[in-house]
């Protein structure tokens, strides 16, 4: 069976800066694969890499089925490009997917929900629900820009709106209640 290159990614609650990638390829490669490279490409065409990495990409040993990369400092829409290389670093196979990573803002939104369980009437606070709605809409908009239109720029813009609410939460959410 011919080699069908593929991968999946995930995030783990509590570790929003990490992206875990798993190789889900099937079939037999036409040549021996020696290693992989992973590119995390932003809407601004910059590359996200781990601290200390001097290349545009991260290496991923072929012997490891999965690997986690600590590359996120906020929510991003990213082109994730994985290359399968031979021992001479010639690209044998390649696959790119557009994926939204929203764990920072989803976690924050959930924190706001948890806050409501301790103070249910907080939802009637004028600004609290207004901004929580904007947060939700922004996350959903980013996800839909990806799933419906594969539009990384609009997705990133939406995620950044949510990020603005998160990082400036003291101004938008009544945290004293």
């Amino acid at each position, binding site marked *: 069976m011919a080699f069908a290159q593929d991968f999946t990614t995930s995030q783990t609650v509590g570790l929003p800066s990490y992206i875990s990638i798993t190789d889900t390829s099937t079939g037999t490669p036409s040549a021996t694969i020696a290693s992989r490279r992973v590119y995390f490409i932003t809407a601004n065409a910059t590359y996200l890499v781990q601290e200390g990495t001097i290349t545009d990409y991260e290496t991923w040993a072929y012997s490891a089925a999965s690997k986690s990369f600590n590359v996120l400092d906020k929510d991003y829409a990213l082109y994730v490009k994985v290359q399968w290389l031979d021992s001479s670093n010639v690209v044998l196979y390649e696959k790119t997917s557009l994926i939204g990573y929203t764990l920072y803002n989803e976690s924050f939104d959930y924190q706001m929900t948890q806050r409501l*369980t301790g103070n*249910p009437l907080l939802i009637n606070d004028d600004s609290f629900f207004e901004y929580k709605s904007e947060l939700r809409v922004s996350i959903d908009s980013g996800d839909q820009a990806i799933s419906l239109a594969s539009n990384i720029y609009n997705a990133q813009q939406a995620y950044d709106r949510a990020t603005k609410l998160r990082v400036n939460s003291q101004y938008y959410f009544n945290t004293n209640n």
Partner: protein
Amino acid sequence: MSTPADIIKIAKISQYLSQNDIENKGLYGGGTDLLLPQKIYNIRKSVEWANSYNQPIELNLDSTSNYLNALCGKYGLEANYLISPGGSVSFVTSPLSTPNPIEFIISGSSLIANGGSSVIISSFIGFNLLFIRNGISQSSIDNGGSYFTWNKGTGTFTCYPAATTDELFQLYPFI
């Protein structure tokens, strides 16, 4: 006790129930919080996200899903009625859809012919049955006189003794 997954389903139904109710009640939504559908949606999305991870204790999922359940209020009760434990929508029989009664006089060509005793009435499946024979309501208990049996699952009706010419049979389905 409802699980977070159940409450998410309840919230999805409560969302449209509340929105339609507000619209139908006109001015000021009859006193219902006009933002309630948006609030239910907002909290449900958040709880649904947390429920997608298999960490209910770390995420304090019971508290947030119970809050969501409370937010749904009376619409949650209605939604709970509409969903089965399996999550599908239950069949709810409406009185308006109850089939019409069947009345006939026994003859050689009636629904139960002279000398016959059994018939399948598929339109009555799922309903209970009141059987009146010659103006006398019949029991399904065999006490030595006339009686009948009714299987609401298959729609099989049987009368004892067998029908004879010119008898009046009245069959009334009810819930």
